[in-house]
């Protein structure tokens, strides 16, 4: 458009060989841009229709009773998901309590202390990466065999949170290591060259700079744990629970399992309940991921 205003555009009368070629976009480039847009559209359309479908389904039961009432197998109109919501909060809180300190300390050790040239450190590293890819049901079996039965913790909040801790630990470690590695070596050198000890360097320079990244990774790992149903199916989450957990030794259920439970009911009245529970789960996940993004943007540093 602009070139038209300026004048002739591609002028006539310019000697051959000096004339500027007309602007054109090769068809390959067009095709490429088109496929980029199309791929994006696939994701957006699916997510959009999923959200719409769930909210529409849930609409009749998207009220406060879903938060305040307990599951009711006789009368779906009286049923709510309170025990599942509190169960989720209990399990995730203790999962965070177990896996974050262990994960962060492991990451600090691997990044700051471990000698990467030693074969056993490389073996540990590969092992952690592989663990992150192990299916969650396998962790469920591990939890059932070792934590629930072996240690005798039974079908309790403690068993569930320990198992989920193991499940997300590799993710927490990997994310924390990335964050620690992103702190430039020059900052460590500057600190050490001033006579700081390694501990002072880590505590006063590396960690403050890495904490936003570590927190972001941790939140994303925990949101994965919130959505997990498979391992907890094996660990006693699939019982009919009409009370909130009262302690680590308490029986429990969590949202994904409550959803599974309602969906597998034969009566149609339970379907909106399941959809409403999905909405709640999505809201929790969205809130956590937003927090992660906010943390990253608020505290991220440019070097």
């Amino acid at each position: 458009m602009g070139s038209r205003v300026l004048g002739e555009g591609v002028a006539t009368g310019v000697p051959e060989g000096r004339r500027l070629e007309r602007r054109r976009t090769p068809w390959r480039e067009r095709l490429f841009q088109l496929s980029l847009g199309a791929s994006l559209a696939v994701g957006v359309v699916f997510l959009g229709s999923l959200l719409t479908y769930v909210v529409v389904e849930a609409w009749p039961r998207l009220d406060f009773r879903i938060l305040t009432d307990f599951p009711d197998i006789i009368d779906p109109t009286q049923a709510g998901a309170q025990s599942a919501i509190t169960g989720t909060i209990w399990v995730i809180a203790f999962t965070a309590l177990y896996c974050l300190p262990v994960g962060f300390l492991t990451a600090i050790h691997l990044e700051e202390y471990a000698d990467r040239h030693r074969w056993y450190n490389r073996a540990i590293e590969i092992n952690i990466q592989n663990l992150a890819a192990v299916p969650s049901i396998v962790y469920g079996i591990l939890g059932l065999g070792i934590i629930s039965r072996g240690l005798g913790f039974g079908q309790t909040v403690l068993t569930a949170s320990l198992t989920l801790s193991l499940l997300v630990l590799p993710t927490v470690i990997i994310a924390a290591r990335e964050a620690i590695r992103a702190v430039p070596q020059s900052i460590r050198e500057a600190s050490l060259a001033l006579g700081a000890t390694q501990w002072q360097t880590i505590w006063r320079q590396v960690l403050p700079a890495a904490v936003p990244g570590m927190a972001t990774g941790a939140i994303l790992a925990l949101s994965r744990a919130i959505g997990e149903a498979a391992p907890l199916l094996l660990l006693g989450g699939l019982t009919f629970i009409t009370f909130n957990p009262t302690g680590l030794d308490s029986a429990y259920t969590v949202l994904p399992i409550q959803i599974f439970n309602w969906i597998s009911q034969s009566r149609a009245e339970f379907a909106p309940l399941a959809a409403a529970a999905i909405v709640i789960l999505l809201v929790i996940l969205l809130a956590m991921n937003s927090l992660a993004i906010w943390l990253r943007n608020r505290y991220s540093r440019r070097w």
Partner: protein
Amino acid sequence: MSSEIPPTAQTPTTPGAAGEPPSASPGDSGNGTLTPQVSFRDAPPLAGPVFEVGSLSVFYGAHEAVRDVNMTIGDRQITAMIGPSGCGKSTMIRCFNRMNDLIPTARVTGKIRYHDQDLYGRDVDPIEVRRRIGMVFQKPNPFPKSIYDNIAYGPRVGGFKGNLDDLVEETLTHAALWEEVKDKLKTSALALSGGQQQRLCIARTIAVEPEVILMDEPCSALDPIATAKIEDLMEHLAQEFTIVVVTHNMQQAARVSHRTAFFGSDVDDKGERHGRLVEYDETARIFSNPSDPRTEDYISGRFG
């Protein structure tokens, strides 16, 4: 530009700073060869050597990066290390405060004596070494903290018990940075210009009152004006501190240093490079009448 370092001539003369300041303005250095009117600093005799290096070799894994270096670093002098890339200058300077300890594969053989103590002795604490022997790096690397906290960091981790505010002011004044930053001590050091950041890094180093300051190409990321300010600062600081500076800039070595070490490298039959100290002498002599033909080739631009 608001604060200028007092010219060397006006400050109390100490044994290390007897020379007159170079007449050539550091800012206008081109890239030509040295002109005869550059006046070199007089190198006083090597009284009270700070470092004595004997048969020093540095290995990275099996590779010998620096081979058999012998040299003596004089008290309150500026010693420059020059030479082409890959000749081991930076490796060498990092031996003086044991920064090479941080590289797991690095290994040092031979001796470095610091005031007659073995720097690599079994019971020597590298933390203590680095408090005495500070270091300024190639790229300005202030902490992502306030200017104040950058200066205060070294004293704090060293357990300084005194008035930090006073210490910060003294240090910044000493480093000729106080006038420029006194109204923004609480702002981030990363907001400073590159040259100011580097001077802040120098100030941060002297805040822990070291005896020696090692500088690893401190001006290579800076423009000529910022470079000139750092060079002024170096001359000023050389009255109290022993300075060892690695530089790629031969004019810089000629302008600021009392003594110059020229490092070269030779390639063995396996194709590996080994850094070597080719010649070490008073700067005036290195630049006007070197005794080794390789030095002369490098100085005159025929090589490197």
